[in-house]
């Protein structure tokens, strides 16, 4: 049988298919469809230090081959998460990666420090798509300096493997990927959603309560594949690829571009069985192709 295990630097996973942050809740809902144990890992909703209400509705807009969301990182905050959601997730035998977000460096550092003390967390994923309030709303994820400083501080504050999730809403993602690597990231996740908006023509106003939202789904896949392809050429750390994956073919594009693992987001909403099906399709593919490890095709499309 083909071995689906992968090593992403310090992070070892039983298979390379993960649930993307924000699309899988804290796992509970999907546990009624299949055993979470099957997943490479569950990356939970972005967690902030204090509870976050999220944005006013509507928060969802369908778009051609995709969707916009403006959830606004609604979550119960660290304390309630550790008390309630985390134990439940662990009891479902899921491999857990925690995605963290903050308005200030201190938010990230406190989260990283506290989560470092908790047993049963595989890794932290830094969501850098939030504006840095102290720096006047500059996004952590699109300034090399702001991002590098944050990553090196978080790196020192915690012992867990550190995944940095990059936003595609930048001029040069390679520059940011390189900066993340040199500041201490162990793994890169790409991509987060692309900023966009929809206007309700009949009301002559933006459809989303928050005006803009993040685009995800098949519509973003070519952008995501291109970014993985470019980043793979210039960094040595492993990449988790995501953006519009719903089947084996989509996932293979990411592996061939250079991702060593993939995450599934919006496709979970369409078919809750997307991830288990993808895992078994991948297993079959590897067997029929005679692959011993997914590493054999990672980056194979590079020219």
């Amino acid at each position: 049988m083909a071995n689906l295990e992968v090593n992403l630097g310090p992070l070892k996973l039983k298979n390379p298919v993960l649930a993307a942050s924000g699309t899988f809740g804290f796992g509970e809902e999907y546990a009624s469809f299949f055993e979470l144990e099957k997943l490479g890992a569950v990356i939970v909703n972005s967690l902030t230090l204090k509870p976050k209400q999220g944005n006013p509705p509507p928060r969802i807009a369908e778009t051609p081959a995709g969707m916009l969301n403006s959830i606004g990182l609604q979550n119960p905050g660290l304390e309630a998460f550790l008390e309630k959601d985390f134990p439940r997730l662990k009891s479902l035998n899921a491999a857990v990666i925690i995605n963290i977000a903050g308005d200030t460096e201190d938010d990230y550092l406190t989260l990283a420090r506290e989560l470092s003390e908790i047993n049963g967390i595989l890794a932290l994923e830094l969501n850098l798509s939030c504006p840095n309030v102290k720096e006047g709303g500059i996004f952590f994820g699109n300034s090399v300096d702001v991002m590098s400083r944050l990553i090196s501080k978080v790196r020192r504050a915690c012992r867990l493997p550190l995944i940095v999730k990059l936003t595609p809403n930048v001029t040069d993602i390679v520059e940011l990927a390189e900066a993340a690597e040199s500041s201490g990231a162990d793994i890169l996740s790409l991509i987060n959603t692309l900023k966009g908006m929809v206007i309700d023509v009949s009301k002559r106003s933006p459809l989303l309560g928050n005006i803009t939202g993040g685009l995800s789904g098949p519509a973003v896949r070519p952008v995501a594949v291109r970014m993985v392809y470019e980043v793979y050429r210039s960094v040595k750390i492993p990449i988790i690829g995501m953006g519009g994956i719903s089947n084996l073919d989509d996932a293979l594009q990411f592996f061939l571009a250079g991702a060593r693992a993939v995450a599934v987001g919006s496709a979970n909403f369409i078919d809750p069985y997307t991830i288990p099906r993808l895992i078994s399709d991948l297993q079959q593919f590897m067997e029929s192709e005679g692959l011993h490890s997914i590493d054999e095709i990672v980056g194979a499309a590079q020219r």
Partner: protein
Amino acid sequence: MLAKARVLRNEEIVPGCYYLQLEEWQIARGSLPGQFLHVRIVDNIAPFLRRPFSIAGAFPDSGRVDIIYRIVGKGTELLSRLGKGEYLDCLGPLGTPFSPARDIAVSVLLAGGVGIAPLLFLARILSGEGKKILVYYGASTSGELLPLKEFLPKKAEVFLATEDGSAGYRGLVTDLFESTLVAGTRRAEIFACGPKPMLKILAQKNRYWGYPMQLSLEERMACGIGACQGCAVKVRSEDDKTGYLRVCREGPVFDFQEVAW
């Protein structure tokens, strides 16, 4: 649960409004009034998301599940083309159902437009429990009114309102209901579903009327199962703090006092 339901019937009953009968035993057995199905209309990526529809009837003995829908966009338009014998991918039953009080013998069902759908299911169940059913049903014009006789228990009393006066009371269904209140308030509880402005008016007026009242709300959905926080509705807790609940999970049915308009 996720299931392929066979289409028994999918017909236009009044212009622009369709009656869809499905066969799916497990859903038929598990459904309660107020719950909904999240359906995947096509097998590809356009339209991308599933579409939520209230369950308008579920019959555990025949495996039948009904939906009544109005064509408003591309998803419902494509749904209307689904033929007898074809299959529809359904996720459900989902959401929290209506929770009628045991000891209130009169149920007022108040609907605007296709909001009548979940109340038809509720009417059948409550009537089976021996409760008196009063249906207040409004639309903009008579051509949009569904032939309720086909769907309601015989004993249900129906009061119609149309905005243009082409059938029943001329005006809003909420005004029609209010006009009947003077005749003497009975002990009753209200279940309502319809456009948001209608539900908002009802909730405001009911602060004076004081009936127990449950509302079925709509919001745009992605997952439909509580994972994405996409279908948020603003609510007020007992200490008057506001926050968001999920229409797909804690809802679609909410107590009128809970919603922060």
